[in-house]
């Protein structure tokens, strides 16, 4: 692994250089306080210091709305959709975001491996960037430090306002060919970046907490505050549930089948024709969301399916906090342990 120094003022030149390898997608400011991953038109528009984008990077691999096929009502036939395989470079990605893509890989490619997702994912390269955690980030609590470089080809670590550029893969090496604004240097360890939000236990102790959490009183409390809008799941970078709808043109001759992001937090998510709803109450849905992040997949894969980006908390209109829920479950579990051990 090589490490180079790069001046902050030369980052736009690096972005321009990367455009030779495909469309570059990077964080841009949106309004006063929001950020979004967008295709780079002008490298000077790219934002290097941002807390989080509203929509996660998954939107580039699992689009919010995606055409699955076109169809003709008249001929009772359909036509396939070609998913373009264009090389893309994702620039300025935070470590938790990269980890979410690796988790999405598992979700979309294990069992039946989905071709649409695979094609979009296959030709992608990633350049990571360090960040200053705000009051919502807690990725360290789920095992993802700021400088976690797994999945990246290149990584920019900010040191005293400028950057150290780590080359992590052959693809990363290739992308730097012919770029002369970097100088070989010794990697430095950056001190002083701390996560303000924390889950009290190491994540490897959470499966045990969740083992006893199913009937916790915490769920009723969360459910009493939840408005059921689904923002937590729609902004979650590892949520991948979707619905499928047919859309008919006004001519009533042609149309398309589309899939769109769906949310297990919406009240009709588990409802079947005839009206039976298998997760009818908010309490069941809030619990399901947390169990999806910390128990069900985690039991099989050994990793939390939450990456600690803080989106579900930052964008919740009711102020419900994912790490606070986990900490409450921990506290409750500690109390239960006390009562189990202290016999009156």
């Amino acid at each position, binding site marked *: 692994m090589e490490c180079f120094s790069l001046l902050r003022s030369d980052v736009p030149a690096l972005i321009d250089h990367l455009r030779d390898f495909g469309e570059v997608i990077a964080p841009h400011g949106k309004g006063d306080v929001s950020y979004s991953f967008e295709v780079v038109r002008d490298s000077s528009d790219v934002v290097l210091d941002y807390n989080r984008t509203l929509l996660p990077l998954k939107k580039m691999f699992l689009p919010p709305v995606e055409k699955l096929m076109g169809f003709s009502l008249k001929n009772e036939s359909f036509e396939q959709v070609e998913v373009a395989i264009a090389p893309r470079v994702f620039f300025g990605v935070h470590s938790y975001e990269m980890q979410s893509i690796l988790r999405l890989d598992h979700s979309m490619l294990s069992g039946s*491996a989905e071709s649409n997702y695979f094609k979009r994912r296959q030709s992608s390269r990633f350049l990571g960037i360090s960040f200053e955690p705000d009051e919502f980030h807690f990725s360290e609590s789920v095992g993802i430090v700021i400088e976690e470089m797994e999945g990246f080809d290149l990584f920019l670590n900010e040191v005293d306002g400028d950057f150290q550029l780590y080359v992590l893969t052959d693809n990363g090496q290739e992308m730097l060919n012919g770029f002369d604004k970097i100088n070989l240097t010794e990697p430095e360890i950056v001190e002083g970046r701390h996560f303000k939000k924390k889950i009290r236990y190491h994540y490897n102790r959470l499966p045990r907490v969740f083992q006893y959490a199913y009937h916790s009183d915490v769920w009723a409390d969360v459910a009493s505050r939840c408005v059921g809008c689904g923002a937590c799941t729609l902004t979650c970078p590892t949520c991948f549930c979707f619905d499928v*709808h047919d859309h008919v043109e006004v001519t009533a001759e042609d149309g398309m*089948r589309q899939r769109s992001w769906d949310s297990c937090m919406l009240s009709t998510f588990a409802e079947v024709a*005839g009206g039976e709803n298998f997760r009818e109450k908010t309490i069941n849905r809030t619990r399901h969301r947390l169990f999806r992040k910390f*128990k069900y997949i985690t*039991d099989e894969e050994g990793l939390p399916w939450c990456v600690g980006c803080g989106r579900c908390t930052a964008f919740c209109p009711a102020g419900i906090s994912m790490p606070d829920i986990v900490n409450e479950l921990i506290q409750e579990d500690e109390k239960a342990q006390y009562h189990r051990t202290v016999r009156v």
Partner: protein
Amino acid sequence: MKRLQDVEHHETEDLYYPTMCKVTGAKQITEMEKWYELEMPEGQSLGHGPGQFVEVSAFGIGEAPISISSSPSKNGKFELCIRQVGTLTNVLKNYETGDMMGIRGPFGKGFPMEKLFGKDILVVAGGIGLVPLRSLINYVLDNRKDFGRLIILYGAKTPSELLFTDELETWKDRDDVELHVTVDQPDETWKGNTGVITTLIPSLDLKLNTTIAAITGPPVMYKFVVMSLKSKQLPDDQIYLSLERRMKCGVGKCGHCQINGVYCCQDGPVFNYVDIKPLEEAL
């Protein structure tokens, strides 16, 4: 954890394109249910097992999971029986012979036939639950010597809601089928059993070590049937249940059919009772 580099391009699948199948037979068999026979294109076979399901689609309306009602031993064609209860199924009502229906699948795990060979089969069907179980029943009848007793318990709300009445007559007349039918609300012509399906269970004489129960019915039914079978001392692992959920994609992705951490479309819809007993959302 599955990683991108573990996957080759040829291992990926176009998961959402249907196969257009021709309707070769259609008949409204009750007020709410219509039976269809379908044919795959170019002599293909659906290749399903009893208990599996397909995603049926009508362009412009959408897709829904539907149980396969015919035995795999019926060659070339397969059958569905669809209750008109939602947007899609109310459109499918109008489908007749010659129309084309979009089909994906078969999906999920059906009844584990290898574990059923040589056993007494106790079928417990409530209402439209007979549709997937008919696949199992006809498979057993087509391979009759491979199985022990075939006991069929079938309950419907009213006599007019009984499905496959011609076949019920045939089964009743066979010496090697023990058929017990009951209705909740009899009419003046009804001469058979009345009451919910669990009333048929106490008087059954079951050989506990060789009996496998296969249960399908409305969600409310399962708990009571399982309780009745347990009070007959039938071991948990000899009970199989086929569960209904919103199986939207059929391929373990969309999330709608999850029962706790289990995808009903992948690990089910047919489950061994032992496997779903710990799942709080199952029954």
